[in-house]
């Protein structure tokens, strides 16, 4: 294999169009914020209007509702258009996670239920689950060891 041509790579960096960071960050900021506001509104709705008294139930219901909305929007081909505008704004919230699972599932439906849909469903979301579970175990161990210090 040839060594990378540093001069050419520098030329690419200089010449090729770059992402407009501030514009994309601004879009991510307001769309991500808006999704969180919807989540907050759902929380208020479940606790105040629907009178769900247990706090954990309220947050579960909020999460489930957001996931449901995303799954439906993904199925109708709307969420990818939102994502193309919002970027991280629609990837970081729980909706982004739901979208990554549903979109992979739709994509691989044709290869059958077991080897297609089920095995590819977490193709994009897999790393999130792995890191999520691993870090929760790590934090759990830390809490177990230093439990006394926190009380």
């Amino acid at each position, binding site marked *: *294999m*040839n*060594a*990378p*041509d540093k001069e*050419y*790579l520098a*030329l*690419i960096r200089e*010449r*090729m*169009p*770059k*992402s*407009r960071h501030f514009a*994309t960050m601004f879009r991510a900021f307001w769309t991500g914020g808006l999704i969180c506001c919807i989540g907050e509104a759902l929380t208020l709705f479940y606790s105040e209007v629907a009178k769900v008294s247990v706090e954990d139930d309220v947050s579960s219901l909020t999460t489930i509702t957001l996931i449901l909305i995303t799954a439906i929007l*993904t*199925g109708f*081909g709307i*969420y*990818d*258009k*939102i*994502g*193309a505008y*919002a*970027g991280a704004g*629609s*990837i970081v919230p729980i909706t*982004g996670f739901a*979208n*990554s699972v*549903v*979109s*992979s599932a*739709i*994509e691989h439906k*044709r290869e059958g239920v077991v080897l297609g849909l089920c095995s590819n469903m977490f*193709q*994009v979301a897999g790393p999130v689950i792995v890191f999520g579970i691993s870090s929760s175990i790590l934090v759990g161990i830390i809490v177990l060891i230093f439990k006394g210090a926190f009380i």
Partner: protein
Amino acid sequence: MRGSTFGIDGVFVENTASVVGPKESEGPLGKYFDKTVKDDLLGQKSHELAEIRFHISAIRYLLNKTSHTENDVDLCISGDLLDEITGASLTLREFDIPFMGAYNACATFAESVITASVFISSGKFSRIISSTSSHFSTAERQYRFPLELGNQRTPLSQWTVTAAGAVMLSDVPSKVAVKRATLGKVIDLGVTDANDMGACMAPAAADTIFRHFAESGLSPDYYDLIATGDLGVAGSELMKLLIKKRGLELGLNYNDCGAMIFNRVSQDVGQGGSGAACSSSVFSGYIYKKMLSGALKRVLLVPTGALCSKTSTLQGESIPGIAHAVAFEVNE
């Protein structure tokens, strides 16, 4: 033969056929394509099957146009971007024509035309079809992410063309002839960004075009059009810069099929079109018809390909490019 540029005698383009999807038909070249479809799924269960249908209908249409039966065609040299070129293989399942698969990523069309031309000029074959297909949705799935995933496209990304283009080459004299070709080399300058296909392929295109002129003794203004395959707008600029460094200036007769096929601003396609069918559909649709009408007399087509797979990119391999040049001329 001097270097890797060689002349080709007695090979003619008998006819061409192109079938494109909705986005391509809305582009600036829309009216030149033979057939346009409104639904890129074509009523099939998967996009892969839809791509195969595109390919089948291009070859069928070509046979109808030339009033030949399958028995009149000696060979079909086809390729596409699907795993193990299943697109082309399953397409040829429908035809009673011998088949040879070709793969050079998006430069497959040139590879196939050059192979077919040399076969015909050997005297052992008299009529060969070269064709390629690509589909936006199958390429997205193969190289990138699920279609419905809400991610952003980088400004350097390109839009894979949903189309199939087929060319019938034969030894019977007709208006457009295949005149010469330059074989490309695999050139790798260490670009690892799979979204930046233009930068991966620009050095290969610059090298092939430079060698074409150096070895054939022609100058760039000999051609009415020098068209690279799918460098995109930024990639084309990069290529022009690279070739200028070697002392060759490309003028206004230079263009890029990927930049021509879409309206980059209004169609939101990043740097332009790409894919194995980009050069084949633009040649079959636009360039060939312009040559028939006499608006273009000498054309150098340089399809470009980025030689990578999802695995090679994930394993951190850099992405080399390849480009072959084919010159078509109108018989005076």
